[in-house]
């Protein structure tokens, strides 16, 4: 039978794996940091930082490209 702690771990794991936007990624990073602080022996959960960091790179790149494209459109309109 699953303990409450296992349930919490599963929910955090889902939050980490589902994060795609910058706010979701930052929230998941904070939650994962808090978990690792409370459970330093849980080395495996640290693997989640890899995916979050890669998703952050993708989201930041898209945001930068979006800003560039907006500024080009504004430049053409002016």
């Amino acid at each position, binding site marked *: 039978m699953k303990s409450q702690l296992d349930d919490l771990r599963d929910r955090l794991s*889902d939050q980490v794996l589902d994060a795609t936007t910058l706010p979701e990624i930052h929230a998941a990073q904070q939650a*994962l940091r808090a978990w690792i602080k409370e459970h330093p022996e849980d080395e495996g959960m640290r*693997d989640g930082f890899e995916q979050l960091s890669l998703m952050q790179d*993708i989201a930041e790149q898209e945001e930068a490209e979006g800003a560039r494209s907006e500024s080009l459109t504004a430049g053409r309109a002016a």
Partner: protein
Amino acid sequence: MDELEARTLAELQGIIAVLQELTGLPSRWSGRVELVPGADFKGKKRFTCDIQIDAALAERDARWPTLIHEALHSLSVGYVGTDYRAFRGWEEGVVEQLQRLLRPLVLVKLDVVTAAGAFRDSERPYGVFIEALETLRRHLEAPVGGDGATEFYVDLLKHPIRERPGVVLAAGYQLPVARRVLFMQAFSAANAVLTRNVMP
């Protein structure tokens, strides 16, 4: 470059040489490694093809699974941001399971001896991806055990990330009708986990 960074670089070069030999796949690693002090992550293979490793982890035996995992990303075909995001379980699950399957052989080939219990493979977070992939592999009856399982995952690594669901689906279509129906049900559920299109 300090001593630890030089050692990590040499270890990654060794691992990648062994993995290329075992899988027949070329690596796209840039040859650069950066040790990041106080990193949250253990390791990260950037889309620019550099590898970053947590500096504190690089000093411990526990670094080996991370080094092998990141080295496998460098062999993975179609490792680009947009496809990674859309099919992340098809990449992280494949790479992590291959890391677990190949690690003993890689360490033997590199003459690495570690303390017993130095590595503990975790059920979360990537364990959910591995469970989904293993369900599909069992339905396809890919041979059970070390070599058969390795073949299944190496074959997936050889296909671009975005094509991996199609590769498994095509294999499922080869099954006899009764088993194909069960496979299709399993595929829908597994693919939802692997692409994170799961219902809350």
